[in-house]
């Protein structure tokens, strides 16, 4: 066979092999066999160029090269097809049932009541009120006396308290923080605290011997009851979104005027706590000039907020700490 004939034969053979190849690995082998640098059969044909008469050499060299290029193109295109299919097959083989359950991971969580406290704090801090901690075991002086409770006042009957000795009790209200604040701060004051409070109460769905309050105290020039109302409305908006609020006269010895604050919850009013303008007796006893300064304050119950928000129907759920309950939030 002449080199030309050999070229034609090898070219046909290689073309057919490429056509028949069923994997990219086969193609790699074909590539090696025909076009390998040292042992490739087509590459070998170039070496036959020496046996040809000089006038045939250029044409022969060119046709070997063009055959090689044609085969390379063929290989590349075939490889492309096969590789595509191979990936598809591989990924198909790797597919799974996505409806099977996920890995058994469980993130922890914060207690729903403490999350409410965090939320109230964040809201009030954003409104300019700084928080601090005060003792749960409180001096009678701070819990009652500094709050304008006259001795022998019937209000004492309404606050059955946990006494630890004759002058100390578990605070019945975080409002006990007021005198602590005013002892060390002068106006303008924007202070708040949150914590547990304690009263002897018959336990039911919405009452417990322990509850959480957030107290706020603002003392400044020109503060009014309208400011208190607006500030409460702002807090409610941050916590509950749009909710109707109610301001109603009520009596607490430490405020005058005194109000009860409530929000509309479903078809009824949910009383959140007491508020009002700080009684001038208190400001005066703290050495604050009542001609120049006025103040407002509130003590709101926290526990009822998540009850309203999530429709929780019993306080007991908060302290039982059933994981099936806690993980709902």
């Amino acid at each position: 066979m002449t080199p030309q004939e050999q070229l034609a034969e090898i070219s046909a053979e290689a073309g057919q092999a490429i056509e028949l190849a069923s994997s990219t690995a086969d193609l790699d082998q074909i590539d090696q066999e025909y076009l390998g640098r040292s042992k490739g059969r087509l590459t070998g044909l170039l070496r036959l160029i020496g046996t040809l008469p000089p006038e045939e050499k250029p044409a022969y060299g060119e046709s070997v090269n063009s055959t090689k290029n044609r085969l390379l193109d063929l290989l590349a295109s075939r490889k492309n097809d096969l590789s595509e299919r191979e990936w598809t097959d591989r990924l198909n083989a790797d597919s799974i049932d996505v409806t099977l359950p996920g890995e058994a991971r469980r993130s922890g969580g914060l207690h729903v009541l403490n999350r409410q406290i965090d939320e109230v704090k964040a809201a009030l801090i954003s409104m300019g009120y700084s928080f601090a901690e005060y003792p749960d075991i409180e001096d009678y002086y701070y819990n009652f006396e500094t709050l304008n409770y006259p001795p022998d006042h019937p209000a004492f009957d309404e606050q059955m308290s946990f006494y630890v000795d004759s002058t100390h009790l578990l605070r019945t209200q975080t409002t006990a923080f007021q005198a602590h604040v005013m002892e060390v701060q002068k106006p303008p004051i924007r202070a708040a605290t949150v914590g547990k409070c304690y009263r002897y109460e018959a336990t039911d769905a919405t009452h417990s011997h322990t509850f959480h309050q957030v107290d706020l105290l603002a003392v400044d020039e020109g503060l009014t009851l309208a400011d208190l109302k607006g500030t409460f409305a702002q807090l409610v908006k941050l916590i509950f979104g749009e909710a109707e609020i109610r301001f109603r006269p009520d009596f607490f010895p430490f405020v005058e005027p005194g109000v009860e604050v409530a929000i509309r919850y479903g078809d009824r009013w949910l009383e959140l706590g007491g508020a009002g303008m700080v009684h001038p007796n208190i400001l005066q006893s703290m050495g604050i000039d009542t001609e120049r300064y006025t103040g407002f304050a509130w003590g709101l119950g926290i526990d009822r907020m998540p009850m309203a928000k999530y429709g929780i129907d019993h306080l007991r759920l908060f302290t039982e700490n059933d994981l099936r309950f806690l993980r709902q939030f």
Partner: protein
Amino acid sequence: MKLPVSWLREFVETSLDETALDDRLTMAGLEVEETHPSAIGSVYHTKVTPNRGDWMSVLGTAREASAALNCPLTWTAPAVQSSIGAAALPISIDIQNSTLCPRYAGQLLGSVQIVDSPAWIADRLTAAGMRPLNIVVDVTNYVMIELGQPLHAFDYDKIPNGKVVVRETLEGEVIETLDGTQRPLPAGTLAICDSTRPIAVAGVMGGANSEVTESTKTILLESAHFDPGTVRRASKALGLSTDASYRFERHVDPALPLIALARAVELLKDFAGAVPLSDPLDVYPVPIEPHTIELYPDKVNKILGTDVSHAVTIEALERLGLTVDGSSEPYKVTVPTFRPDLRLPIDLVEEVGRIIGYENLPETIPGRPGTPATDGPEAAYGTRVRRALAALGLQEVSTFTLAAPSAFDDAAEAEKRVTIRQALSAELSGLRQILLPNVLDVLARNVRHRQTRIALFEVGKVFFRVGEGYGEGRKVAAAITGDQGTGQAADFYTAKGIVEQMLASLNFKTVEFVAAQRPHMHPGRTANLLVDGVVAGYLAELNPKTVKDSLDVQAGLGRIAVFELDIELLRSLEPDLARFKHLPRFPSVARDIAIVVALDVPYASITNAVRSASTSGLLTEISLQSVYTGERMASDKKSVALRLVFQAEDRTLTDAEVDSELASIWTALTQQVGAEQR
């Protein structure tokens, strides 16, 4: 108080239906808590605030409604009849302390028939929550509910010579009250006495010795004014609260006694056939006069944040029955005796606000001072701890600080427990000293609810005695049991991993865990956490024997890992901020070594030995690959495989350098922990 609406309507003229009236009263401050039906129509249950004793009557409520609704009060006081002159029978009233009893009025009534009350009186009393008895008792109650003035009827024939003395009791005096109870009276209790003995506890309850009975013919009707504090102390000392004492404690209008007496006499004449045997007797040495408050009218807008005219202020006060002299500033506002709660100008501002209606107040936001607002440092630190633990897969719980003593308390600390005086139950007997018992309670409850994967924590206050005073601390405690998702049941190392990660998130770089003994904890699986050499808490597995004895869970639950740390202490030791370190630019070299040491050599001793040997700073990491004990090892030995990582900041390490490091490490291991090569 229970207030029949039809009775109220007799005193105030309004076209509002009972729902609208309820709403207006509530918005004026007199909350109608509930409305119940009765034989004579709806009954309001009003919530009377402690400052408003005047609301404890139909008249007082009607006054409030009249002011709030701006509608007429239709009540007029009955005329006081004084036409008899000298009393037909001997009667004398002697007030020995006019501070405690400013006023004592009485009237003698004869020919009294002790019969049942007419149905309309009985029905009204029943609706108001009282039990009808006989006409005399019923009329005293009726007038009390109607006007707010408690009355008392004595059987005149049981008072020798009609001699009544209002005095404080002496040591040792006793009275049998109308409820049939013998009551020793503390000395100094204000009592109504005959010439020798108490016949009533002033303002609280009458005595059996002067009780009106079936055979009573002549009565002395008492209508007095007592000091609120006196009645309150007597009621408290005797443990006896009555409708009368409840009202006197909250202050009764001193102008009422004669009016109430006249009203009662009118009713007893009509329905008991009573005949007055004396004019009303009124001992009132120092009459209590209406008082005056000075009010600058601008104060109203300054406090309320409103923009109302002076005329509105005057009208509001006048609607409430106050008299305003507005001819000059300050206004002189005269307060009737039924409103003793109004003492200061601010009290008048509140009254104006109530009449305007708080629902009509604007909502404004005050300006802010320049200082930034922050959370307190203790709580903020607690929040970091809480978030770190939640991120590590633990669920936060929240328990009571009031708690019963627990088997898991530390008996050595029992003396420091803060206890509640006169506790009503064990659960309310004192304050927790540590968090663990509560957290274990929660764990046990969840185990009983068939939870198998439990990891709980609480951050909260703990309490203890300090000398004569009290201290409060802040701790974090956790309890973990069951497979946490690793395929293995949680144990000591689960807790340790959590503590390590938590501490890392709080910037603690080097802490120590030292084997320790703790009450209720597994003696071989307990460690103290040391930060800067200070014990900041512990982690452990519970002693399974204590679990069996003291924790209400089924047997075979498996290990329970716990920790409790003092986060106030951690906060005080908080390290500086982490400083940035350049990332390594040259490759590290890792070498694994396997050593054999005695079984009781702690891992910490091995790593200490390794660290002590490498003084070049090239050793950057030691990590544990495995610990092996078993058949291929002598029974008192263990094999420990370590990976050591070496790295230099300025060059690629050569094998020779690493080999030299390893050689000195081996020397140290041999010398310090008796290690042999595996």
